[in-house]
Structures are given as structure tokens and as C-alpha cells.
């Protein structure tokens, strides 16, 4: 099972009746697997993709107030979006068990930040569990529900990329019971608490935490019973998995005690005092922030991130752990220096409609400021068509910010924002309304490929179907944009280059004079339509001798199917990769790309 499948399996074995999510790497497969397993076994649980993480959190939270076991999953930056309900839910607590799964991405491999969700748990004052493997992640769902129900508190599970996207042989267990009926006991002083009651809830929360810091089931574990020394190593998460293996390889297993922390926050009080009493020096290895380390109050005995012994940034790779263990144990080891060869940078797929949209935007507003957003189309930066990427929805609000910043200049730059359909729904709508209210002259191109492509093609609110393919209501993007008060809203197909470029030009000149203009660039994601088995007419293209080797197509279009032959000094089409969209015939300034 993939780590995310193991988490989903664990949820269903524990009788989780409501699971919600918004897709984001490395968490996306949790809900997708939940749906798959639930459908296969006809389990009556509700599962859905929500419009964003905040909404997903609130849906699952209400379910647990009604006494059911529920869960919400997301990536770490998604937890930022859901942080508002998280902070309050910690105070109010739960009835049925509630597990918040926030997947971190040290590296980062596919994220804007390397933030540590365990710090968010600390800020919210809820316990957090830190799995080292898919198998342990599954076990921790069970521990998490027990803990949540024992103390009426939300519990966080914090897997990292190397847990979510590792595969391990795991036996599936029996599914839980789904017979529990929802019961909502009205209690406004708790579920609708005013500040006076919040103070009381906060006091109760502190008492809960005190007890959780002594909860037997989540106490740190000494993995190598026989080892005895005045030094000890403390690990959690995937660093524990690496350290176990490396200590055995280095012959340290029987020598230096190794403690695995199951619950990094709150760290067990007894454990903290036992360290002070028993050891002269402890090494703490954890990802990404020094959460465990900070709670070991006797700084004199600790080696870790705070004194620079362990790197405070990036993923802790096993070779780095090997080096640290050697240094800590006083073993001699030659430093391994590996010349890292740069890999290939990701690009938009051959035939991706976003590439055509970006090409049109650069033609329509060549000197514009291009604000963009989170999704596949972030890769428009390779094409020089993306200048800013901040966070979900910021393309629109940053466009507004630039508009106001340049407002008093004689010659204002054109501002063109790009946002995907899913991201627009997620966080773009309030920003768009703001631009209408402030009458911001900018062009918004909504890249509507009818899916959430980057994370594995999950449906959007306009798809008309849900997580398991069931028919749902569909929200009309044009009507939504008009409903926000936008007066210029036109739709076009970006792959019909000859019509689409004039459309974007029209929008840009409208924005200069009158106010916000929206173009909906509608063309299905190529991966999505391929999977659906949709057949489209393949346009076979070739390159004629008119090619002068100027590399315009390589630099400004960057299609993986157009290669540059360094010997012949000319462009070539790779028939293995070409999707046959035919957009490139309008790109070459010498008209050397032709239909064959």
C-alpha cells in the first residue's frame, strides 16, 4: 500500500464516517483511496472534495460534533487556509473522534514552503502524531481516534512526503462499524461560545494537554532495549525510519539508546525529565522544525537544529543522518561528497492548453506584469509568462496590488493574471469581487481545463461530478464571474490561436480603459481527456527547411515535443511526444512549422 492508501485504509478500519479534503501534494491520494476502498466494499461513509481546506475542515468538524468519527486531509499549506477553524476547534473540542491529517513536504518537493504542521498543532494546542512509515501511519489512525475520544480533542496526524509516497507491504484489517447515528446535543456555551466561555474552554484545554502529556499509548518508545550509554538519540517521523536502519549498519544499535517519539507535541513530561536525569548528551533528529527539541528545556544536553548540528532546512536525507550519527558517536567516516547533476525541470505537457493561453497573453500584453497562481500553470514561468506566484488565489489580489501601486504613474503597465479553475473556486472569488468594488483595470484569464490537474485530476465545482464520479450540481463559471459584478467576461478556446489572441487583446484594451476584464480559456486538460478516452483529430506537424535555428519556438513555446538538434542547428518534432494539437504552427516567426 502507498502511505496515503494505508491512511485511508486505517480511517475506514476505524469507522470514519465523513472524510473531506482539498487536493494537494503529498496528501491527494488519501481521499482518492478512501473513496476507492469505500466503493469497493460498499461502506456507507461520506467522502468529498471540498472547495477549499477551510470548508473541508468545517464539514468534517461538524460531523464529529454530531458524534461521528470524521477526518479531514490536506497538505501543509492547506492547513494555513484551515487554520481559522482549527484554532477554535481546539478550544471547543470534539464528541466523536476527529483526525486532522496535514501532510508536510520537507525538501520541498512540490510545495511553496517547508513549514512544519506540528508547529500549527502546538499553536492550536492539539496533540500531533508523527508516523515513520505507511504501516505506522495506519496504526496511528487508530491511536489518534482513541486519543481524540478520550480527551474530546482534535488530533493531528502529520505524515511527510516520504510516508505519503512510500509503498510498503501492509496487511489490511477489518472495516469498522458504520452503524453509529448522528446525534447533536445543543450546548451553545460550548459550540457557540462567547469570549467569556472561550476563556473557560481554554482553561479546560490546558488541563487536557497536561493529561495528554502523560498518555501511555503515545509515550516515546526505546527501540533498542539493550543499549546503554550516557548519550541517546531521539527521532520522530521518517528520520526514525532512516536512523533505525543506519544505526544497525554502523554497529551502534546495541550501544546508543534510540528513542522514537510518537507524539512530538505535547512531549511527555516524564520523558523530558528522564532525559535530564539519565543522559549527558542527546541528539534530536526530526523534520522540519525543532519541535521536540524546543520542549527539552535543558539546553545543555541537546544537539539538534538549534545549535546547527542538524540542518534546519530541507529534507534530512539518510546520508546526512549517517554523517551525524558518526560525528555524535565519535566514529570516523570519510565525508561523502556527491556531485549532484541537475535534473530536468518540469514543463507543461505537450499539447497542454495552458501553453497556448500563455502564448496568447504574451502576444496581447508583451510588456505586462503577469501575476499567477498555484497549479500546473505555475510552469508558465518557463515561458516568461508568470512573474509572481504567492499562494492560492493571490494572482487576483496581487494584480489589484500592482494596479494600485502603479495607479499614479503616467504609463501604467498592463496587468494579466492567470488562475486555474480549481484555484479560482478555492480562493479567487473574494479577490475578484474586491477588484470589481475597486474597479481595478486588469485582465484575468481563468485557465479552465475542467479539472484540478497538478494533483491528479480531481473534479472542480464546475465538473458536475464528485470524488467517486457520482453526478453532482455544476457551478457555471461565467455566471459566477458575472455575479461577482464583472462586466467584461468572454470565453474562448486557447488552442484556436487565431481567434484566441484577438480575444485576449480585446480584454487587455478593455481593462486599460474601463475596469476588470475576464477571459475564460476553456480547453480540457490533455491528461484528463486522454484518460477519458476522448479522441481528437491529431494534427501531424513537421518542420520545413525554412527553419533558421533561431530557437524562438524553444524559448517562447517550450513544448517538450519540439527539440533542438544541436548538430543540424534546427528544430525537430519528436513524434513520441507530440500530441497533435497543432498550436505550434502559429508560433514560428518563419512559418517553418507546418501541417503535414
Amino acid at each position: 500500500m502507498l502511505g496515503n492508501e494505508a491512511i485511508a485504509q486505517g480511517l475506514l478500519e476505524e469507522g470514519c464516517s465523513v472524510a473531506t479534503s482539498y487536493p494537494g501534494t503529498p496528501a491527494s491520494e488519501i481521499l482518492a483511496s478512501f473513496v476507492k476502498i469505500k466503493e469497493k466494499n460498499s461502506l456507507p461513509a461520506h467522502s468529498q472534495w471540498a472547495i477549499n481546506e477551510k470548508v473541508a475542515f468545517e464539514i468534517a468538524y461538524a460531523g464529529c460534533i454530531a458524534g461521528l468519527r470524521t477526518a479531514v486531509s490536506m497538505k501543509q499549506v492547506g492547513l494555513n487556509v484551515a487554520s481559522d477553524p482549527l484554532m477554535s476547534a481546539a478550544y471547543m473540542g470534539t464528541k466523536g473522534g476527529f483526525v486532522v491529517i496535514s501532510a508536510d513536504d520537507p525538501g520541498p518537493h512540490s510545495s511553496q514552503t517547508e513549514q512544519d504542521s506540528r508547529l500549527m498543532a502546538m499553536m492550536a494546542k492539539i496533540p500531533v502524531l508523527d508516523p515513520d512509515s505507511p504501516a505506522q501511519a495506519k496504526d496511528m489512525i487508530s491511536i489518534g481516534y482513541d486519543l481524540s475520544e478520550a480527551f474530546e480533542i482534535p488530533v493531528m496526524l502529520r505524515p511527510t512526503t516520504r510516508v505519503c509516497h512510500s509503498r510498503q507491504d501492509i496487511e489490511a484489517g477489518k472495516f469498522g462499524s458504520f452503524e453509529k447515528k448522528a446525534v447533536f446535543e445543543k450546548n451553545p456555551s460550548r459550540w457557540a461560545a462567547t469570549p467569556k466561555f472561550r476563556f473557560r474552554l481554554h482553561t479546560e484545554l490546558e488541563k487536557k494537554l497536561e493529561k495528554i502529556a502523560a498518555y501511555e499509548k503515545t509515550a516515546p518508545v526505546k527501540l533498542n532495549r539493550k543499549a546503554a550509554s550516557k548519550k541517546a538519540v531521539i527521532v520522530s517521523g521518517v528520520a526514525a525510519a532512516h536512523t533505525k536502519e543506519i544505526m544497525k549498519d554502523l554497529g551502534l544499535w546495541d550501544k546508543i539508546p534510540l528513542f522514537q517519539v510518537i507524539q512530538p507535541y505535547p512531549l511527555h513530561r516524564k520523558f523530558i525529565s528522564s532525559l535530564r536525569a539519565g543522559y549527558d548528551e542527546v541528539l534530536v533528529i526530526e523534520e522540519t522544525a525543532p519541535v521536540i527539541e524546543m520542549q527539552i528545556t535543558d539546553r545543555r544536553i541537546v544537539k539538534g537544529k538549534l545549535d546547527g548540528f542538524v540542518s534546519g532546512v530541507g529534507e534530512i536525507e539518510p546520508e546526512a543522518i549517517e554523517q551525524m550519527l558518526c560525528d555524535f558517536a565519535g566514529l570516523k567516516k570519510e565525508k561523502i561528497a556527491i556531485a549532484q547533476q541537475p535534473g530536468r525541470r518540469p514543463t507543461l505537457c505537450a499539447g497542454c492548453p495552458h501553453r497556448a493561453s500563455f502564448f496568447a497573453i504574451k502576444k496581447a500584453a508583451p510588456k505586462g506584469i503577469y501575476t499567477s497562481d498555484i497549479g500546473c500553470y505555475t510552469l508558465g514561468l518557463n515561458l516568461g509568462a508568470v512573474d509572481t506566484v504567492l499562494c492560492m488565489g493571490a494572482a487576483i489580489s496581487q494584480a489589484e496590488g500592482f494596479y494600485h501601486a502603479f495607479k499614479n504613474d503616467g504609463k501604467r503597465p498592463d496587468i494579466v493574471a492567470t488562475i486555474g479553475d480549481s484555484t479560482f473556486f478555492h480562493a479567487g472569488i473574494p479577490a475578484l469581487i474586491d477588484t470589481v468594488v475597486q474597479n481595478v483595470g486588469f485582465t484575468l484569464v481563468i485557465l479552465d481545463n475542467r479539472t484540478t490537474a497538478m494533483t491528479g485530476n480531481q473534479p472542480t465545482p464546475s465538473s458536475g461530478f464528485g470524488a467517486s464520479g457520482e453526478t453532482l450540481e455544476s457551478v457555471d463559471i461565467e455566471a459566477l464571474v458575472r455575479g461577482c459584478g464583472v462586466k467584461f467576461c468572454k470565453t474562448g478556446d486557447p488552442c484556436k490561436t487565431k481567434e484566441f489572441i484577438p480575444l485576449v487583446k480585446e480584454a487587455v484594451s478593455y481593462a486599460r480603459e474601463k475596469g476588470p476584464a475576464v477571459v475564460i480559456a476553456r480547453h480540457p486538460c490533455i491528461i484528463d481527456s486522454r484518460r477519458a478516452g476522448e479522441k481528437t483529430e491529431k494534427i501531424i506537424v513537421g518542420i520545413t527547411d525554412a527553419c533558421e535555428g533561431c530557437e524562438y519556438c524553444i524559448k517562447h513555446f517550450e513544448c517538450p515535443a519540439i527539440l533542438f538538434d544541436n548538430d543540424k542547428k534546427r528544430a525537430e518534432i519528436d513524434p513520441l511526444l507530440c500530441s497533435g494539437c497543432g498550436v505550434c504552427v502559429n508560433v514560428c516567426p518563419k512559418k517553418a512549422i507546418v501541417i503535414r
Partner: protein
Amino acid sequence: MKRSVNRQIVISGVGGQGVLFITRLLAEAAIMKGFRVFTSETHGMAQRGGTVLSHLKIGDFSSPLIRPFQADGLIALKSESILQHGAFLKKGGWIFVNSPKKSDAGFNTYVIDADAVSLKAENPKSVNLVILGFALKERKDLEVEGKSLFCTFEDIKQVLAAQLKGKGKMLDASLSALESGYAVSIK
């Protein structure tokens, strides 16, 4: 008690080539044979044409990642992978690489032009299975040192049939891609 056979294998290529799919096949084959297995995969943005790397560890391991100089072998869907990921290999490790040219990588390197094989079969998306089929050829030189892949051509066929159950056309195309790689002789 599960049988023990320790193998550490790196599989790499670029997004869209199907590195994850063959990693999955090998992992499932390991489970089928009763071995313990760990993989670590690349998902997300890199899958859009960027470098994709899988770690596959069969046997008694607790970490999902392979350290430098520990891998028994590398399956490279692009020849550039040897430069990028060759550092994972032990001395004397093996490489199966997709390349039109001979390789001078210095390991036990076996070259197949999987692009050409898959184009000839008019199934350009099957490069991953072609090279996997090639890597599954019985090789005396590797067997002797106990470093061969841990499973056989027949094992993978069985896993493939289970994975693509009910997808008749796709299964046929996949099996034929696997066989076409298996049929290529070692130069």
C-alpha cells in the same frame, strides 16, 4: 517469517514515462513472492516532464530511501539518468539503460534502444515496459553474484495481468511491450 532477499534498486526517468508504474509492478511482484518491500516515489509537479526517481528496497529495511553507493542496480528510462543517479550504485552495480548509443558508464551496463522498439510497435508510451522486459532477461553473469532482479519475467506478467484486470486491450498492449523488450538480445 518472510523470506529475506536484500535488493536496493533505483528507477529513474522523466515525468510521463511511467517510472511509477513499473516501480509499482516490481513492488507488487515482491509482495507476491512474500518479500518485504519499501518504495519511495516522486509525485506532484515533477511528474510534468521533470526528473522522476523511485527507490525500491526489497528485504529487511526500515527506511524508504537508498543511500549513495548502496544500490544494487539502476533502471534508467533516459540515458541522462546515469549521470544524475549513478552515485546511488555500489561498485559493480548493474544498469539497464534506454539509449540509442552504447554506454561507457563503467558499471555492468546493458543498453536497449527502448524508444525505437516502442515506436516500431506503434506504442510510444510503452518505453517503461520495454525496458522492464529487457531487465528481466535471465543473465548468468548477474545470477552468479546474486545480484539479479528478485523476480522473473513470468512474475511480472502475472502482476501485470492482475493490475490491468478488466482492461483487455491495455493489458494486451502492455504484455506485448514487455515481451518485445524481453526479446531484445544483449549486445
